[in-house]
């Protein structure tokens, strides 16, 4: 499956591969590749409805070769933002540039180069999946000669080749979702905007889809903006994440950056010990507590439960880790696992959303540096 996007890329875009190869050689397809062109850019983007501000002064940058995740509750303004990026709704204020164009002035060219998977996507039930894609291809004025080839390729990418000629009304919700992704890819876009791409897809399918997105970004240098409320998927696939709440982007950056900003500043080591009996536990607690750099110990209440060691602020986690290992080895404690606990996106998200209005100032400071003078 991972070979197919490459095949399309090489067939249809001779220029792209060299570009990608160059970028991989210099070591950065990820967000770090700050030299990559910004394909989605908004400044002060605002959408007001009569009685509510759906999107409030949004500043966003998505570069080629990265997956940006928009995270937020229902009604946080994710879909409105996406519609403004596609020129499907007019911003009240502010500007957006998608592939360097203003979507509200030149929506046609933007829509030609941006693949969009809407939330709760639908297809014409009485037509087959392939026919639906062909309709999209015709609306995009694809040449007849490349049309069938492209459609075959995208169908294979999303794993629908077997069912492509069945009527869409016989598809499951997950298959429709896959077809939606295929539909967004038919036009061979530079930017992919996916609104809740993995809802209704089974867990194995989700992994496949996320792998596909990853390969599109890496091999084709696409920029992908995806909105989701499924936190661990966003965490697993996105290079950078923007947290949306009540129309405002209250934080954006990589997981590490977000963790730093919204985390509690604590580092935690998780240690698994195979202990039986209270005496053993008490002994373990003393041993672990004696390691330099460990400030407190929690957990281990039930057998099999991991222990959480909080690392002293400023202490080198690696040193603490080897300290723990040495102590455990010296005391012959039955160690089963040891790892640093990364704050999950869920923790970050909960804290970010819960944080009172002050985040606005912070956002202003964070983005000020990014605007080229």
């Amino acid at each position: 499956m991972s070979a197919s996007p490459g095949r399309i890329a090489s067939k249809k875009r001779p220029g792209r591969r060299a570009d990608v190869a160059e970028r991989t050689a210099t070591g950065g397809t990820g967000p770090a590749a700050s030299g990559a062109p910004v394909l989605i850019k908004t400044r002060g983007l605002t959408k007001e409805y009569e009685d509510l501000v759906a999107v409030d002064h949004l500043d966003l940058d998505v570069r080629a070769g990265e997956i940006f995740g928009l995270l937020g509750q229902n009604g946080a303004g994710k879909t409105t933002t996406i519609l403004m990026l596609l020129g499907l709704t007019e911003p009240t204020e502010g500007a957006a540039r998608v592939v360097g164009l203003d979507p509200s002035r030149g929506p046609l060219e933007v829509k030609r180069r941006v693949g969009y998977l809407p939330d709760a996507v639908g297809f014409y039930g009485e037509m087959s999946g392939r026919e639906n894609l062909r309709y999209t291809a015709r609306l995009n004025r694809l040449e007849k000669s490349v049309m069938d080839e492209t459609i075959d390729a995208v169908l294979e990418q999303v794993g629908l080749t077997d069912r492509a000629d069945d009527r869409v009304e016989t598809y499951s919700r997950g298959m429709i979702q896959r077809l939606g992704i295929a539909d967004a890819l038919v036009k061979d876009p530079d930017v992919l905007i996916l609104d809740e791409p993995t809802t209704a897809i089974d867990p194995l399918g989700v992994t496949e889809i996320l792998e596909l997105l990853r390969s599109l970004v890496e091999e084709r240098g696409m920029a992908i903006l995806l909105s989701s409320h499924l936190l661990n998927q966003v965490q697993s696939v996105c290079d950078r994440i923007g947290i949306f709440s009540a129309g405002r982007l209250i934080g954006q950056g990589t997981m590490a950056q977000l963790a730093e900003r919204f985390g509690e500043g604590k580092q935690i080591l998780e240690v698994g010990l195979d202990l039986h009996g209270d005496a053993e536990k008490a002994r373990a607690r003393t041993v672990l507590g004696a390691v330099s750099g460990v400030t407190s110990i929690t957990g281990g209440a039930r057998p099999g439960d991991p222990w959480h060691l909080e690392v002293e602020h400023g202490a080198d986690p690696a040193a603490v880790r080897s300290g723990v290992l040495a102590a455990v080895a010296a005391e012959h404690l039955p160690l089963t696992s040891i790892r640093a606990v990364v704050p999950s996106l869920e923790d970050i998200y909960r804290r970010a959303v819960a944080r009172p209005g002050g985040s606005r100032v912070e956002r202003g400071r964070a983005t000020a540096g990014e605007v080229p003078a």
Partner: protein
Amino acid sequence: MTSTTSAVEPAVRTPAEDTTTPSRARSIPRAGWMVIASKEFGDHILSSRFLVLAIIMAVAAAVPLYFISGQIRDAPSGATGFPALFIALFWLTPTVNDQISLPSVVGFLALVGPLLGLAFSFDAINGERANGTLPRLLSQPIHRDDVINGKFAAGLAVIAMVVVVMILGVTSFALIRLGVVPEAVELLRIVLWILVTLTYIALWLAFGLLLSVGIRRAATSALVGFGTWLLLSFFGGLIVSLINGIVAPLTTTSGEDVLKNIGVREMLQRLLPDTLYREASLTLLNPQVTTVSTPATLGQYAQAQQRIPSLFSLDQSFILIWPQVVGLVALTVACFALAYVLFMRQEVRA
């Protein structure tokens, strides 16, 4: 604002190259609305509602024809100089026996036409919306009005096809079974009448489109559409009489009063599109019709009584019904324009 623009400008490099790459060349475009129209046309032709309407139209043509054919056959021998015999097929009111008479082909079309128009448009936009296909469709590189234009064009094309096939059926029946051959002018009258018929149905198509934009649920818009049709077709006359009775009551039997009453009724009836269509059709198809209104004063009435029956030439007939045609076109344009504006201003999301 200006600073934002300049900040954004240098952002894109790679995609800019892309536009010049030949690999991205697209075939010379069919306009977006044509792609939509051809898809919709195909959908309509294969849909079950098309089958039902084709059957209705066939019945609308065949039943009057069956009963008229006898009358027509008798006509040449009975009345010498029966004018424009061929097209009489379309407007003659067939009589089954002394009690029962059926609507003519024109009458049938006046009744069924709206049904045809509504059936192909009542779910045009809200159907897409309910299906979840509207945002996807609008995110393709087409203008938003391509959607509504394409759908209107497709509906009109299907209707034109059905109507023309039906009328060709009637004419070929006349040629083969009755041995009546049309004259050139008669054919021209038929062509003009087809255009008037299409305008009349297009009015209802545009009305259906308007409903499909304005009403979120297809079932509701169907109900409103067919309800309006029912109201105007079957209770229209009743409502007209009611208002007529209030505005120009028939208190005395004096000639002036009666004429005033009739005048007001005619005016009210012309607010109904099917009256406009009937008047336009009958005048176009029957050169004997030289007036569509009852005289407004007793003097004119007396004059009309004394007039020698004559035949209208095509241009005279056409001038006579020009207001009706303009009325139909104006109503159609108004409905479509309203649907258009509403759709352009609507949010994509429900």
